[in-house]
């Protein structure tokens, strides 16, 4: 693999996850990600991209394998091993280290203003004072260009604004890594750019980011590395330009052929 485990922020080893008994969604996935990298995960529908992301922030508990985010380790030997306190505690800690932005833009809390959406977790989870949380929140909202929208309700926001607010909400928890699950796939084409721009800005600040995406152009331009996932396995993991221009695996070639000449897909 590209990175050595010792210098990596995120280490995944032999990860398996399935939802039924009939075959795995993720089979023996291993990957290391360095701090500050922007990694795009691409692959056909149903290849396990989203599941990998959800395993990474422990919304789904892995069946077996090893997972490390920063200093927090989670290990499960066999699928039939009951989740114990140590595992659940680790899963909760990992969720605290990882920020996540979801596919649809309906994941903001509709009963709270944009500002309260952002301050909620710092106040509830980190027990920040309202003033401190507000300060953090306004800083993050400014970063995504939404300081004017602080007192609006999510229902009045466009899809792009919603996704930027969701990014600010995740950033307010000061995560070590940001995960995005197809953050622009539900957006109108003209709104995609503003969201991608925020991710590029974060990259230049040194934020570690993992993005499941169909935006091939963005993946190629902005990513430090691209992972091509197919049928629950990592087929290729390489530098963006290398993977796009000289794919080694025939499955990668086949997949990329669909996107030739397309700036915006899906």
């Amino acid at each position, binding site marked *: 693999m590209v990175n050595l485990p010792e210098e990596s922020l995120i280490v995944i080893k032999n990860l398996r996850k399935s939802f039924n008994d009939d075959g795995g969604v993720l089979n023996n996935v291993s990957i290391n990600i360095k701090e500050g990298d922007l990694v795009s995960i691409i692959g056909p529908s149903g290849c396990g991209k989203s599941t990998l992301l959800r395993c990474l*922030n422990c*919304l789904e508990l892995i069946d077996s394998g090893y997972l490390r985010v920063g200093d927090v380790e989670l290990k499960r030997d066999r699928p039939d091993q009951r989740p114990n306190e140590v595992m659940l505690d680790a899963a*909760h800690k990992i*969720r*605290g280290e*990882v*920020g*996540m932005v*979801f596919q*649809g833009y*309906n*994941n*903001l*809390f*509709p*009963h709270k203003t944009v500002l309260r959406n952002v301050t*909620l*977790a710092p106040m*509830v*989870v980190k027990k920040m004072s309202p003033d401190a949380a507000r300060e953090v929140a306004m800083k993050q909202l400014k970063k995504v260009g939404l300081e004017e929208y602080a007192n609006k*309700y999510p*229902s*009045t926001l466009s899809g792009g604004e919603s996704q930027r607010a*969701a990014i600010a*909400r*995740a950033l307010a*928890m000061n995560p070590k890594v940001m995960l995005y699950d197809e953050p622009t796939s539900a957006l109108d084409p003209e709104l995609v750019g503003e969201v991608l721009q925020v991710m590029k800005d974060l990259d230049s600040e040194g934020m570690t980011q993992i993005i499941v995406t169909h935006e091939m152009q963005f993946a190629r331009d902005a990513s430090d590395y691209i992972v091509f996932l197919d049928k629950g396995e990592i087929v290729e993991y390489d530098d963006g330009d290398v993977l796009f221009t000289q794919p080694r695996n025939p499955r990668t070639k086949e997949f990329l052929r669909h996107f030739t000449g397309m700036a915006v897909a899906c």
Partner: protein
Amino acid sequence: MIPLVLKRPASRLRRAVFLIAPLAVLLASVISPAGAATGDENNVIRWGGDSEGGFPFMFPNPKNHDELIGFEVDIVDEIARYLGKKTVYVNNAWDNLIPGLTRGLYDMAINGLEVTPEHEEAVNFSIPYYKTFLQLAVRKENLDISSLEDCRGKVVGTLKDSYAQMVLEELGDVDIRTYIVEANTYEDLQNGRLTAALFDSPIAIYSAGFNPEIKFIGPPIGEITYAIAVTKENSGLLRDINEALVHLRDTGRLREIYDTWNLWSPIMAAEFNDYSPRAVEMTRYNEWAETHRPEVALSARLERYAGFLPDFGMAAIVTMKVSITAMFIAISLGLGLAIARVFAPGWAAAAATAFIEFMRGTPVLIQLFFIFYGLPSIGVKLSPFWAGAVGLGLNYAAYEAEIYRSGLFAIPSTQWEAALALGMTRWQAMREVILPQAIRVVIPPITNDFISLLKDSSLVSIITMVDLTKAYGQLAAAYYDYFGPGIMVALIYLILGLPFVKFSRYAERRLAEQDKGGKRGHDNFYRMSARWRHTNLRSKES
């Protein structure tokens, strides 16, 4: 004489709970003597009756609703005076007088209680204080009917499920019309819908004795005996009461009471072996007849209704207190049940489900009886207020729990994920994200339930509380007027529920403004539904 089999239910509203009376008696007889009456002090005698029991037994004084009058009240006062004790009145629904006695709510019960085998299994009876019979009544111009036998082939009205009805059925070949309110029976007799009416003599006298259009006819029919009930354990009090009754009879004091109430009869003369002429005026009866002549002017009526307002006001406060306390219990407990059912480990979820199904699946009336009359046998004695509030609260908690559950399921799972992904624990996500949204969903159905509870709270009248419904029964019985007070009480119930309806509308609108992008969302929905109705109409036309 016709043997007495059915008990003689003395008043109209007694019929409403007729079916559950056997259950209450059963409960009372099964219950251990844990609740046996104990006169707290030697100089106080607590006695139970039903102020709704009606005239002339006991009823609110038309001139002062706070005062209870009636020939039975006079008898109790005389007994207490003879024994040198003070009286404390405890009101209870007539059907529950005996269970209330065994529960220890009062030392003795008196209110047209008959000596029947079922009653005698649960309690002891004093010597009879009154005997009466059935009285036949016809229009004054009727000359065809002079006895019960003449009623064959005629239309005769009587009280539903009463001894009189049974007598008429035994006679055979009578077109029997049964009534809940005796006043209606005599009205129908007067206007010709009925040929005759058969009622207990005291009720006949007090319903129609002053009506010049109606006459009483024929010899006494049947025999009905009333006595005072005390618990089996309290033989000392029974001895005292019997001694007092003998004394009152022998000194002529009882006779005086019956004379003032116009209740002396040949049967009583035989019973007391006293054939002397009347010694005192029937003052009490005359007062009654004075206020109950049918032709009361409208202005006098309205004035009388205005006089009801303080009574209804007090009763409305009782209704509100019980309802709000019960709703508070229902809302909090229901939330716990819903959360347990959805999120708790298997055994707790199963327990919550069992509780919900049990509470929903059994009548709240039975639950109230059980809590008030049943629980004392295991040492849990609740006051009427708390028994009512807890009973209604537990019952409604089951319904609230199911409303909350549907509210919780209405929140998309992505909201859970978003909250958990921010590092919240499940409980934090629940408290901060899911519940606040779920509550919005459930406000309309919960308001609905509160209004339903407001009306169900009338059930507390069966456990001795005087709420709106009970107050209605009392005043209507006292004045012989179910029309005006009925409208008043209905309006009061409506008004009591209105603030909650308003609050619900307000909350719904406010929340819609937040969730759906201003009033737009709310209004959009109505516009869309209007369009849908419109298309439907059009498709019908084409």
